[in-house]
């Protein structure tokens, strides 16, 4: 029992130690203190995973808010889903901690960085282990805070700060939707803990479930960077690369998917919302892949690929293929973290150069990064037998049965994915070196602390597929069986796919053909993406991200600033203040007039007196006179 409480407690303690003693601790000590908590948490989660006997454990922590009949506890819930998420977070987290102990070694904010990372792990664990939507919401906003702190880590440059603010505000917009969902839950069921809510839904009461699901999904859109609220993810690359790997690839962005899977009972009861989720996922996938085609910053490409992969996961959810999409979450965590860390080691080697047009031919100097990056690229492209193939194609298989149009567009998306991934791979590692001389002689393979996580992740990306090997290939579909108890029944019927069918061959083709085309275009012909100036036409539009950022700026930011100026100067100052001031002035001016009444001339005084007396007498005696 107490070991469950220890899992989130350890990173918190790590954060406090590092945070409080930040400048005084030397880097290695801080690194160790920073890495131990996730490692220990991983060990504990593994032990919990192995001993797990199938029934969910609820560990109440404290009775947080209790007002009248509303009572919101903070409690942890350990069941199949949260255990897996625990493993991913702590596992990938530890690897990234090890990686960043080397990557950030020369940064003067080393201790602070580890403190924030530990805080992030704490909030992520809180999010995943929460037993109710409110505890989830605490973690939800907590990770938003940590992503703000980490994106804006190098706070000297204002643009990084703006990117961090943009991320936090976009998350906050999503969180508003989520909060409204929670309020609706309270209105409907009077409570927000999972078990009670889902029993009530199963029992059939609760009226506007669709609205609740929709509001919760708005939260997921904000957190997992879906169509309307995705522009913050590419800007989040301003943070150090391990941050992008941990937060913006492996864990935080998958919180949205975790929430939908957790609330699958709710979403199942509102098919139109699921349909909406599917289409949003598809649109995001296509958009992300399209923009990723022509990006020249290595991290931007990976960011857009994350956006599109998340789109795939939501497509899986749309087709209520919860297991497939969760499987893709796991494999994506492995190979995307790998790609990001690889990119990090490339940037580290090229002394902070991120533009792939200034790289090339790094194959010889960075052998381990080269191999691991290759394995990652193959995995993400969905080439069998790597993990990416199994997870993405299972989603595609479910899509095939769910909605053929969506399936076709998804195939196009995965084709684009493999094209831009191989484009980045070839341009960075093959061809001749285009960097400056200074970068050339500083080129060196990253130290063991960085390459070890790369290798581990590469291995996981390769063998990741066995977690949920489909039946027709002879796999035991471990993940499906594992998640079955918490998923709605009937969602796990074995897919019989015969090899010769279009359903199997199309994804393969979508993986291989664009890869060969990219290798041929950039590898043999040594074509180099054009410099910014000469991009023209459609390529320019796509390169400038379809001007979405500018549109948001024009639609939202400018009007609010104008409104603020208008309120402040016009309404506050002119209308209300003037109203108040004018009463004061009116009194003063009228008093000036009245003052003149005192003319000082005695005749006038007596005349006024007699006039007044005359009027009064006339009034009192009116009955007598008239």
């Amino acid at each position: 029992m107490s070991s469950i409480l220890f899992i989130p407690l350890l990173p918190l303690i790590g954060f406090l130690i590092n945070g409080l003693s930040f400048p005084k601790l030397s880097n290695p000590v801080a690194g160790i203190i920073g890495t131990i908590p996730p490692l220990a948490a991983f060990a504990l989660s593994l032990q919990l995973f192995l001993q797990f006997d199938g029934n969910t454990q609820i560990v109440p922590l404290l009775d947080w808010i209790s007002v009248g009949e509303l009572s919101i506890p903070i409690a942890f819930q350990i069941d199949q889903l949260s255990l897996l998420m625990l493993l991913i977070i702590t596992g990938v987290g530890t690897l990234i901690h090890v990686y960043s102990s080397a990557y950030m070694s020369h940064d003067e904010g080393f201790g602070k960085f580890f403190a924030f990372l530990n805080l992030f792990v704490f909030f992520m664990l809180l999010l995943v282990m929460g037993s109710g939507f409110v505890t989830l919401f605490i973690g939800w906003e907590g990770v938003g805070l940590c992503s703000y702190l980490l994106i804006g880590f190098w706070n000297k440059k204002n643009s990084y700060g703006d990117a961090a603010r943009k991320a936090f505000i976009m998350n906050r917009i999503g969180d508003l939707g989520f909060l409204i969902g929670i309020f609706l839950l309270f209105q409907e069921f009077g409570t927000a803990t999972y078990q009670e809510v889902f029993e009530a839904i199963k029992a059939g009461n609760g009226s506007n479930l669709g609205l609740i699901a929709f509001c919760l999904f708005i939260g997921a859109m904000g957190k997992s960077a879906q169509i309307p609220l995705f522009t913050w993810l590419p800007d989040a690359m301003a943070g150090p690369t391990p941050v992008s790997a941990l937060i913006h690839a492996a864990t935080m962005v998958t919180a949205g998917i975790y929430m939908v899977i957790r609330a699958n009972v709710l979403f199942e009861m509102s098919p139109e919302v699921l349909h909406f989720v599917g289409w949003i996922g598809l649109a995001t996938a296509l958009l992300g892949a399209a923009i990723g085609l022509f990006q020249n910053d290595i991290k931007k490409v990976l960011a857009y690929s994350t956006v599109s992969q998340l789109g795939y996961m939501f497509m899986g959810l749309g087709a209520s293929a919860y297991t497939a999409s969760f499987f893709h979450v796991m494999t994506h965590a492995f190979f995307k973290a790998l790609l990001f860390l690889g990119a990090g080691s490339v940037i580290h080697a090229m002394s902070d150069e991120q533009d792939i047009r200034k790289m090339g031919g790094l194959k010889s100097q960075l052998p381990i990064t080269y191999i691991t990056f290759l394995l990652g690229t193959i995995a993400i492209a969905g080439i069998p037998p790597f993990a990416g193939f199994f997870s993405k194609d299972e989603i595609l298989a479910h899509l095939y049965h769910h909605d053929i149009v969506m399936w076709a567009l998804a195939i196009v998306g995965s084709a684009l994915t493999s094209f831009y991934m191989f484009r980045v791979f070839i341009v960075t590692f093959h061809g001749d070196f285009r960097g400056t001389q200074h970068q050339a002689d500083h080129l060196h393979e990253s130290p063991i602390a960085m390459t070890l996580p790369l290798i581990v992740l590469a291995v996981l990306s390769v063998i990741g597929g066995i977690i949920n090997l489909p039946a027709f290939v002879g796999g035991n579909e471990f993940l499906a069986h594992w998640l079955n108890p918490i998923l709605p029944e009937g969602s796990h019927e074995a897919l019989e796919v015969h090899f010769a069918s279009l359903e199997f061959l199309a994804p393969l083709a979508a993986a291989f053909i664009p890869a060969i085309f990219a290798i041929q275009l950039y590898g043999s012909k040594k074509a180099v993406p054009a410099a910014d100036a000469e991009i023209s036409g459609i390529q320019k539009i796509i390169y400038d991200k379809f001007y979405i950022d500018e549109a948001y700026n024009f639609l939202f930011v400018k009007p609010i600033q104008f409104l603020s100026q208008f309120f402040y100067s016009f309404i506050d100052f002119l209308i209300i203040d003037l109203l108040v001031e004018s009463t004061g002035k009116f009194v003063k001016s009228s008093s000036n007039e009245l003052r003149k009444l005192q003319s000082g001339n005695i005749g006038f005084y007596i005349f006024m007196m007699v006039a007044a007396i005359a009027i009064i007498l006339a009034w009192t005696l009116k009955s007598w006179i008239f």
Partner: protein
Amino acid sequence: MTPVIALSLFGIINLFLGFTFKRQSLQVVTLLFIICSMALTAMDWNHEYLWFGDMMKTNNLSINFSLIIQLAGLLVVAFSNGFGKDEVYTQPAEYYAILLFSLVGALLMVSFQNLIMLFVGLEILSVAMYVLTGSDKRNLRSNEAALKYFLMGSFATGFLLFGIALVYGSTRSLYISGILYNLSHTAPESLPSFLYAGIILMGIGLLFKISAAPFHFWTPDVYEGAPTIFTMFMSTVVKTAGFAAIYHILDVTFGGFQKNWIITVYFITIITLILGNISAAYQQSAKRMLAFSSISHAGYMLLTVCANQPSTSSNILYYSLAYTLATAVSFAVLMVVAEYQTGRTEKPENFDALNGLAKNNPSLAFAFTVALLSLAGIPLTAGFWGKFFVFTDMFNKNLTYPIIIAVLMSAVGIYYYFKGIISVYFNSGEIEKIETSFLFKIALWSACIGTLVLGIYPTLLKSIF
């Protein structure tokens, strides 16, 4: 009755003492005289009797009123510190004597049972005031003020007399009890119609005295023209005596006929409040501002007279005591500062003359602030409770419109009272330490502490009023 006799004798004695005693000792002697007469008045507490041929009556109410009037007299004499050194006031004894005689007049006005006594008391007080107003012979402003006061005063007395005559004509008696008896025993329609005219004319005569609105034109000029010490006397004693008389006439004798005069007095009160407060807002001279503020306070007190509730008399008492303390202190500080500033600035009585008072003489500044706060009616001061009791009375009679106007005007009032506080505390100006006599300090502090104590614990006096 003994205080009336005592005061008159003391006045005469004072005249003779004038030959031998010098200024300061005369002041002390007059103080003793007033204290002794206050003791005499207090002795008659709780038993009523008629005297002077049933023309005068002493009961608790009249004793309270006369105590307040004598207290005001006491403060004035204390602040007067022997009418200064310069030769203008050559005979301080005369001024002290006149002050004592006017106190006698005020006492008569407070406890009259017969309209003759009302007239006589009023006249003694007014004539004494005309003399005091013009006492600064050299200064043309004081002469002009005296003449204005005299003309308007006697003109108004004419109306008062005409009113009394008509009332006498219709009720066949000059005794208040007689009038009440006749009014209650004759059928209202058989009463001659000029009775109502009589009531109104008497009311006008008295309203003039307390400077109610249409008849207030003399007040600012006279208050500004007269020497500050006498203005202090006028604004406290005359107003309190005036209100005692009005209450006695309108609420006691002609309470039954309220439906005839209520509309007129109602209307006069509203104009007094508006005119008094608004025209005070723009005043540069602090003295004129205080004059207008006395008009506005007359308006507030008239509100209770209109309301005519059982608690009206005690509220008038409380309000006039609070008003007297506050006005006495503010005029005293103004007098001292004006005296100090006469050589230095060309307009010694303006607000600018008060700038930066707090720096070197904090006690004067503090007293002045407490006085102005009490006049403005801010809590912690007696003025607040004065207004509070007035508002409760008005509510009992549910006169809704005057309440709104009273509230609005007291908000305006805050403006010009705070102009004083701002110039004293927050504006910068160079005023060195002003020397004040020992008596002056005692009087200032006792009045100021009195205001605060009454502000925090009003039951002290409200229970005996």
